[in-house]
């Protein structure tokens, strides 16, 4: 009688990770989430999960001071959180909020900038000349190096 055929052992990591990032630590440590991926885009060089929560929250809150770039950096930094939607429940609301905020803000700025540049003088009248940057720089003498 033949012994039951066992499947040839393929390389198995400590936990079954469906995600593509290799889990360097086969034993889940408190530093990583149970999903075995790192919350930041830097991977093992980035933050731990607890630090990530505080950083994500801080970036989200500071972004309200007219700093959409900070929201964008927040989304970029915690990109794995956005990609794996179930892994980091505590960080996710801040990152998603930052993404939404950045999208709205950039839509507004792009709309205004495009209106300004395409509309030009026909739309704004003489005010356009006063608002456009190169005239303003000339008038205020911003390009004189000293």
């Amino acid at each position, binding site marked *: 009688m033949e012994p039951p055929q066992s499947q040839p052992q393929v390389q198995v990591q400590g936990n079954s990770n469906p995600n593509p990032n290799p889990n360097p630590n086969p034993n889940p440590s408190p530093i990583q989430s149970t999903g075995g991926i790192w919350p930041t885009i830097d991977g093992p060089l980035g933050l731990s999960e607890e630090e990530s929560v505080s950083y994500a929250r801080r970036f989200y809150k500071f972004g309200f001071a007219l700093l959409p770039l900070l929201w964008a950096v927040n989304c970029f*930094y915690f990109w794995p959180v956005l990609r794996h939607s179930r892994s980091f429940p505590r960080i996710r609301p801040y990152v998603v909020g930052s993404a939404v905020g950045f999208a709205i803000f950039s839509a507004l700025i792009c709309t205004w900038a495009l209106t300004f*540049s395409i509309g030009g003088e026909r739309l704004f009248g003489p005010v356009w000349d006063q608002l456009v940057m190169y005239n303003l720089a000339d008038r205020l003498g911003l390009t004189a190096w000293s």
Partner: protein
Amino acid sequence: MAQRQTPSTQTPTLLDSLGEEIVRIVAPVSICMFLVVILVSVLNSGDSSFSVSSIATIAYTETTSDSSWDKFVGALLNSLAFVVVVTVATFLLVLLFYFRCTGFLKIYMGFSAFVILGFLGGEVLIFLIQHFSTPIDCFTFLLLLCNFAVVGVMAVFMSKMPILVTQSYLVVIGILVAYWFTMLPEWTTWAMLVAMALYDLAAVLLPIGPLRLLVELAISRNEEIPALVYEARPVNVENLDPRVAVARRRLWRDRRATENSNLRGDANVNVDNALGLGANAELNHGSDSNRNDPSLAGEGAVLDSNLSSSTSYGTYSDRNLVRAEEGRVQETDSEVTTPLIGHGVNVRMHSRPEDADASDENLMLEGIGLGSSGAIKLGLGDFIFYSVLVGRAAMYDFMTVYACYLAIIAGLGITLMLLALYQKALPALPVSVALGVLFYFLTRLLLEVFVVQCSMNLLMF
């Protein structure tokens, strides 16, 4: 069961790890030089010789009508004045560091970075807007500029950010300062480069040199000096033991020194020891640079010297800076130390202090170091002076740009090799600047004539 070693699971050879590390430091230097060349060629095509007044022109203002001898003497005086200012600033920095005014230094550095990114960046952007006649309005411009500057200061000094963002901001700061320096008169620029290379050599190698004092002070106190240092990513993180990877992650920019109290908290000082061991520490010491921005001007020059310590960007003040390189001697976990030495080479280079002209900002620029963990750190001053050399070469012709670029990269490679050989702090400027200046003059005097004649006679090129 047959085992197959895929390339990803093979132990990286010396070539992989060392080559990768070198590429990770040569790439940003090349990007910085390339962008400065582009800026110079785009903005100076009108050939408006804009001369900035700064400390480097305090002794003599070069005009095109002077004789060559006058220009030469004037350039020497200017560069001498510049070096004196840098020396004084560095000693001031050593003094401040000695009296433990690190908080003040950090605030000053943050302020300097904000001024560079905000004002200098704004000036360069305005130049570009005027050149391309971009119809952007002032509100959008101000908003974008403020965002850029604030996030930049956060990335470089205050907060932990994606490594890519921090590295990019450091390169941008290097580009802006280098572009500003290329606005100096020509003879003064070349004299200043040579003078700074000599100063770097003296300050790092002489026992009374301020940078050496600074480094020794930092080592003895085990503290960190705030500095602007570009740090490359360490290689081979994936192949490390998980505990090592964790510890390395913590080392790499650990901003909260709390749990790493056993790690030396902030010091960037890596003491250079014999290789191969966790005990290596590289000393990176930063160069201080005073950047004076005349545009801000007006006010008197506040020279600050910031010491930059070797650590990575931004983490200072009581953080464990990148220690990845070091394997951290103080790390009590032994796992941390050993595997970090991928190739057993612990070298460090020290670069010269970066000094800027008369304005108020001081950048702390750091020398170059090669960590045992493979993370190379290069001071921002090196970026700046290399880019100034290449930018000035670009003002003449692109042929000199190619020659100077190759010379600088070769000098960087030689310095890395010397570092591996001598295992102590070495200045990063002298070899590259010497080769660069030599190649510039040789190209300008000899090669150009040859190439032009060949091209005109349709022989080659």
